[in-house]
């Protein structure tokens, strides 16, 4: 059976990368005694697919993965077993059975929303002005790892939230398609904010 699992990835788990998360989930499934399916071949791999890689250091309130099991199990039972088998940084939000024939999860992601909290006090109106300027621009040429690309079309939404207590933070929705993924830290650079001074949390993945 194919099972779709949504979960959080927070706390110390922010520093567990994509490949390590794969391994972590494989072990969690083994601890939970879930009958994971494996690929054929000399080095069988468990059939676990994560919807979209989360950059190191980001937390998430909503990650999605598909796993395949050799047996039909009750989703509630899968959820209970996994809950007892995961480190505290990961919480299971939902487990549902999905059609075997659905296309691979990674190909179905359109975009992702993020919340960015600033660890240093920021001037809300100044930040709002910068955001407006950025959103008005036609293109935002940027360079990442030696490659030039345009960041602007990858930003679907960007706004400044000012709380009643004066605390200022950002909300953004960025494209997250294969070959067209916007990174929150790149947006921060474009706004003149050092990504080191921000805490980024992915809040939602938007699917096709």
């Amino acid at each position, binding site marked *: 059976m194919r099972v779709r699992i949504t979960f959080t990835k927070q706390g110390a788990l922010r*520093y*567990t990368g994509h490949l*390590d998360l794969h391994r972590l989930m494989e*072990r969690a499934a083994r601890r939970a005694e879930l009958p994971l399916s494996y690929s054929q071949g000399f080095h069988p791999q468990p059939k676990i697919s994560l919807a979209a890689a989360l950059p190191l*250091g980001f937390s998430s309130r909503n990650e999605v993965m598909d796993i395949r099991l050799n047996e039909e199990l009750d989703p509630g039972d899968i959820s209970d077993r996994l809950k007892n088998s995961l*480190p505290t940084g990961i919480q299971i939000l939902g487990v549902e059975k999905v059609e075997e024939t659905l296309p691979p999860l990674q190909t179905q992601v359109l975009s992702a929303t993020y919340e960015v909290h600033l*660890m240093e006090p920021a001037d809300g109106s100044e930040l709002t002005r910068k955001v407006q300027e950025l959103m008005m621009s036609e293109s935002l040429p940027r360079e990442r790892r030696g490659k030039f690309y345009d960041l602007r079309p990858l930003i679907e939404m960007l706004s400044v939230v000012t709380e009643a207590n004066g605390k200022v933070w950002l909300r953004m929705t960025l494209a997250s398609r294969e070959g067209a993924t916007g990174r929150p830290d790149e947006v921060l650079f474009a706004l003149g904010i050092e990504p080191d001074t921000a805490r980024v949390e992915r809040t939602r993945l938007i699917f096709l």
Partner: protein
Amino acid sequence: MLTPEQIETKLDRILLKVQKPGRYVGGELNSTTKDWDKTQTRVAFVFPDIYDIGVSNVGLKILYDQINNREDALAERAYAPWTDMEALMRENGIPLYTLESKHALACFDLIGFTLPYETLYTNALNILDLSNIPIRSVDRDESHPIVIAGGHAATNPEPMHAFIDAFAVGEGEEVIHDIVNTIQKYKSMPKYSRMDLLVALAQINGVYVPRFYEATYLEDGTLAHTLPTIPEAPKIVTKRMVSKLPPPITKFIVPNIEIVHNRVSVEIMRGCTRGCRFCQAGMITRPVRERGVQEVVDAADAAIRSTGFEELALMSLSSSDYTDIQELVDAVSKRFEGRKLTISLPSLRIESVSVDLMDKLKQHRSGGFTLAPEAASERMRRIINKFIPDEEIINTTREIYSRGWTTIKLYFMIGHPSETLEDVQAIVDLCQRVIAEGRKIAGWKVKLHAGVSTFVPKPQTPFQWVACDTKESVLEKQALLKRQLYKDKSIKLSWTKPEDTMLEAWLSRGDRKMAEVIYSAWKNGAKFDAWDEGKKQEAWMPAFEEHGVDPAFYTHRQRRTDEVFPWEHITAAVRKNFLFQDFRQSLEGQIRVDCRLNCFACGILPTFANERRENPGEVWKCPDVKSPAQKINMELPVVGD
């Protein structure tokens, strides 16, 4: 002192700038975080190498569980930060902290270093410094933690005597409670005195408090004696030994990042009866105590279930000697059938039965099959007391290749006592013969990996009197190996750099004078000495010069037969006389059989007669003690009021 919250805030700013930040954040499954404020005694266990290596250390986890299972104490962990992290921590004023609660190490009551090998010494100093704890024991006061150390390096604690408040000699499972109880008693007194506490610690069996001993030297620089300076400290500190092995640990830490050894390790047996003369572990971990097959299999199963690890290692110094090894292998292969688990059974004897055992475990043939003849000529194998006829080695390797393994790893050492170039040539000859035989069986795909390390005569072994081979001689022997083994593309050769061997020798064989050398080497930038990087020679040679200490005094000097060793007042309960007799027999090429067959009176039984009497029969592999119980040996001080 920074609070955990302040430390975490600072960490947030730097973690994305370092390699593998997951090393520094904790949060692993099976780690334990207790209520700091409600717990009386707080212990930080430190493995002074990076997380990737330290997190799988079984010794540290045993102690961690021992403490966390107590109501009145908590244990947390810390490892050495890699150089990138250390630089950022220093730059941002972040002290070393524990992974569980992020408290600075200086906040704890007790810091326990695990020192399984000597090349961690400079890291231990660096960690104290990074924790803002005075590096020298004498500079610490009532506001500082008690700093203890244990592990095999405590067999000769003297090079670290200036930095460690107390050493736990031998096995830690029981003594750690004695130490914690003593700390609780003294810290809850109306006026806590660190000195009084140290005196009390010195009275616990197996605890060595170096500041209460004084070393006197002869004119030639060797020791006259090391004697206690207070009446409470025992003349000889005898190691601790647990007469019945406690249940194996099953809740291994499951890291959230990739590390070196992702595996469950179940110790099937402690100690070794083979008596290989070069082997320190075999001498200092006596007597042999075995766990039952059922206990091992159940523990392995529980551990695999609690970790999800994909590898199981059945650990001991000599798996083939485990009494019910056939039953164990049968039970393990039955229990874990179809569970996609890699099972390793290290340290197998060189005989075809070992191949049968590995066959039963149905392991991937890709990993290679490891054998450790240690020496390649029969003459040399007699000297080191690991006697196996050449034909047995050839037959075993033939069997391995014919059962489908294509790679064999053979471990040797050069620099054994009285070794000549012929003995080294024998390594080449043996390797070539093994590969030639292998090709007859399986053709040109067969491979051989020869791992050739250099012998360091270790304290409390029959070879403690002999000198290390000189750098020139080692280089000549290594050149011979390279010249001839490189010709064959199917043979891979690896070796130890002579500089690394010398460092290991100074540190393991040193006396109290080495402490200043270690301190200066650390000041000169030495750290991560077990690693292949860093500027070792630039740090260590000037340190020796600064203190007028000749490194060759420790490495290249044959010890007089009546020499008093720096570790003379520390004993693993194997008598010096026994070791000396064994050394003499080695010079005559005489071998000693497995001591399960014939007790050679090494000294374990007289020291632990009561323990043996209380645990009779097959659990120990020493003869039973039949004499009536004697009164408690009054020479050994007893803890208490």
